[in-house]
């Protein structure tokens, strides 16, 4: 039994090897040392196998193949690409396509998810049930099956482009253009193309200025309200947002929309942009699938704000609209946003299933055709993982900043 005086004047005993296991001060070091040795052993075993396999197959580790011509076509590209372009360019096309479908998907998924989540909480019995069916149906079936189903729907729908043709205005077409500018055919969706003329930086600048002004006015309204109790109107913010860009565009006319032309010749629709079916299929499938998950997050977020908060706000005399904006939403968003962002991340990762509908994203170009043509499996898969890793870490970095900024200030 150690007495108190022993603790006050500890005897300086020498170090002996047994303490490596028995003394908590050193035991950690021992375990880490064992772990380090184990990791080095495993890593060098894998590396040694890799070297032997490479030597046996006459391969080496090199990214030289990225400069070689790709020799394959890609059906939808946002940048110039031909089959003579390099593998690197094919990979870049894939990256852009991935980002395109991911961003478009996140926007549509948010719209679908928020409306479905709110409607699922609605007092309207039939709407709430319908939304429950939607959410459960999409959450419990694999995304790959939904991509295939929606891909088949999109592939089988749409008429031939010639149904839309007017043959130089001589005949009445079988189908008219939707809003005079959209035609969904079996080749894809013909939509107006955007063409920018001289002076476009001014229009863009006006747009940016409008957005900045929008937020400045709103914060001004809030400041005046908090400082003086006077409530300024909110609607001028919309004028500030829209007016500059409209005026600049009317004055300069530098941005024009080119509609698909159904009268140009007798064979096909000319002009406009053709949005490919694979993109539409993947975009819809990912959005509707992820929307079901977002709906659940939104519902949980709104339910997490206790009714006492709403009642307290009502007792203070706030109107329903303002209760929602000032009391419920800020608290609900704190719960909704983190899982929402991780759903965006999931959508981006799920977009790697593009290969199932033939959309040329990074997995289909770099991880698919390039890998199969060159046989550079390790290099391609490594690059592919790196790309997704960079996106994931960026998004989770943004999320951490947001979480830190809205975290409850605890004592």
């Amino acid at each position, binding site marked *: 039994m150690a007495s108190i005086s022993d603790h006050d004047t500890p005897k300086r005993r020498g170090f002996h090897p047994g303490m490596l*296991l028995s003394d908590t001060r050193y035991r950690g070091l021992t375990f880490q040392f064992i772990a380090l040795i184990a990791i080095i052993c495993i890593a060098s075993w894998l590396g040694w196998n890799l070297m032997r396999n490479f030597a046996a197959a006459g391969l080496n580790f090199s990214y030289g193949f990225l400069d070689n011509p790709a020799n394959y076509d890609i059906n939808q590209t946002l940048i110039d690409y031909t089959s003579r372009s390099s593998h690197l360019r094919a990979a870049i096309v894939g990256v852009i396509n991935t980002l395109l479908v991911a961003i478009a998907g996140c926007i549509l998924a948010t719209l679908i998810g928020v409306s479905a989540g709110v409607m699922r909480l609605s007092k309207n019995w039939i709407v709430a049930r319908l939304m429950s069916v939607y959410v459960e149906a999409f959450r419990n079936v694999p995304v790959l*099956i939904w991509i295939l189903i929606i891909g088949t729907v999109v592939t089988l729908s749409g008429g031939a482009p010639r149904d839309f043709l007017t043959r130089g205005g001589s005949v009445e077409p079988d189908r008219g253009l939707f809003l005079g500018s959209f035609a969904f055919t079996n080749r894809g969706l013909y939509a107006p193309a955007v063409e920018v003329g001289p002076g476009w930086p001014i229009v863009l600048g006006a747009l940016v200025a409008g957005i900045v002004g929008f937020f400045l006015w709103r914060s001004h309204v809030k400041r005046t309200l908090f400082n003086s109790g006077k409530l300024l109107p909110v609607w001028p913010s919309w004028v500030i947002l829209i007016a500059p860009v409209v005026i600049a565009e009317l004055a300069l006319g530098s941005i024009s929309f080119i509609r698909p032309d159904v009268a140009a010749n007798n064979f096909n629709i000319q002009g406009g942009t053709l949005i490919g079916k694979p993109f539409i299929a993947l975009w819809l499938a990912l959005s509707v699938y992820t929307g079901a998950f977002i709906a659940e997050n939104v519902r949980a977020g709104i339910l997490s704000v206790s009714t006492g908060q709403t009642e307290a706000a009502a007792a203070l005399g706030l109107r329903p609209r303002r209760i929602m904006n000032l009391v419920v939403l800020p608290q609900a968003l704190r719960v909704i946003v983190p899982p929402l962002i991780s759903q965006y991340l999931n959508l981006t*990762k799920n977009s790697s299933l593009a290969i199932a509908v033939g959309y040329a994203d990074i997995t289909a170009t770099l991880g698919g055709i390039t890998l199969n043509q060159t046989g550079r499996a390790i290099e391609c898969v490594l690059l592919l*993982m790196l790309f997704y890793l960079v996106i*994931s870490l960026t998004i989770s970095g943004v999320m951490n900043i947001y979480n830190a900024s809205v975290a409850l200030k605890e004592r």
Partner: protein
Amino acid sequence: MSDTHAQSVAFVRESFIPEQAPPARETGAIRWVRHNLFPTIPNAILTLLALYVIYVLLSGLLPWLLGGVWNAGSLSECREITGAGAGGCFAVLTERWNQLIFGFAFPQTEYWRPLLAFVLLFVAGAPALLPDLPRRLLILTALYPFVAYWLLWGGTILTPVSAFLGVLAGYFAFKATDRWSFALSLGAAVVAAVAVWWVGGWVASQERDFLAIQRIQSRDMGGYMLNMILGTVCISLSLPFGILLALGRQSRLPLIKYVCVAFIEFVRGVPLITLLFVANVVLAYFLPPDTNFDLILRVIIMITMFASAYIAEVIRGGLAALPRGQYEAADSLGLDYAQAMRLIILPQALKISIPGIVNVAVGLFKDTTLVSIISMFDVVGMIRGPILASTDWNGVYWELYGFAALLFFVTCYGISQYSQWLERKLATEHR
């Protein structure tokens, strides 16, 4: 009473008015419809829209389901029977049922084995999943992996028996040395188990035909059975690995902590399909040149890695949600790290994590369909490959995809309903 009022008030009612029935529009079904379907004009519009959507869905689905053809040899025969009707061609399901469920190479005479394994899965799962059953029945759960392995892959019974004996030997070695130190007893358990496995492996390789049933290659497995195998194996394997990773991430030892953090963040940052590419084309480069790992095993390894990173994050949440007092109480009782984790922390943390773990499990089970992309013939692979490519059934999309969706829906919805039931059950025990 009336006298007092008579002085001050002109008229006082002395009796109650007989109760009247509420207005017709405020009772029964009418009231319900008014309040739940048409309370305001926007709501009424929404209701009508919803009714229209339901009408469109049902008018498409019902004739398709009810007028379906269940017996025909090919799509063209189906079309002959239905004529101009909208009936679906469900004959593909009856004709290709075995392929959809078992894959196209699984020997027909052995179908009873996966079916038996499937039924036994419920028997073995029940003690672990239903808290009311006696704990003693857990021995069934412990036996199940060996039985299921033997039923599915076949071969001599000596292989699973010796594997089980190895685990048993490890368990008793652990119990025998448990008093001294956790690390020591763990080492003893590993040594005992490996020794038994080594001997058992030798015996099994000598007596290949002792009580043997037909050996089945992994590549012959397919259909929904493959999804079930991958899902069950990977989820059960990823639980222990996930717990280890979560503990490692909480560790005070920097090396172990950062290795775990790097692993978890890496795996969670890449899509599963890239990991499956690794299993398919890359992993072979990192193994000794003459090894011939079969694809299912490689895929199981990668999916298990994937799932354990997600499970680790869920369990980390559970560990973080435990009050600090629990950790301090364990310390003040004089328990060492292994004892504190085993007896105090993990039982509570795991209980908190159940909903999250079930979410990961459902997600993982759905993700097993991704193996069809690396040309394995699970249920989606069977549909996209052999069935839709055959001349008989080319073009029967809705029936096949609908069937696959239904299979997954039933399984996943069942799992999530079970999890909610379990949550409610565990929650009431605290009240």
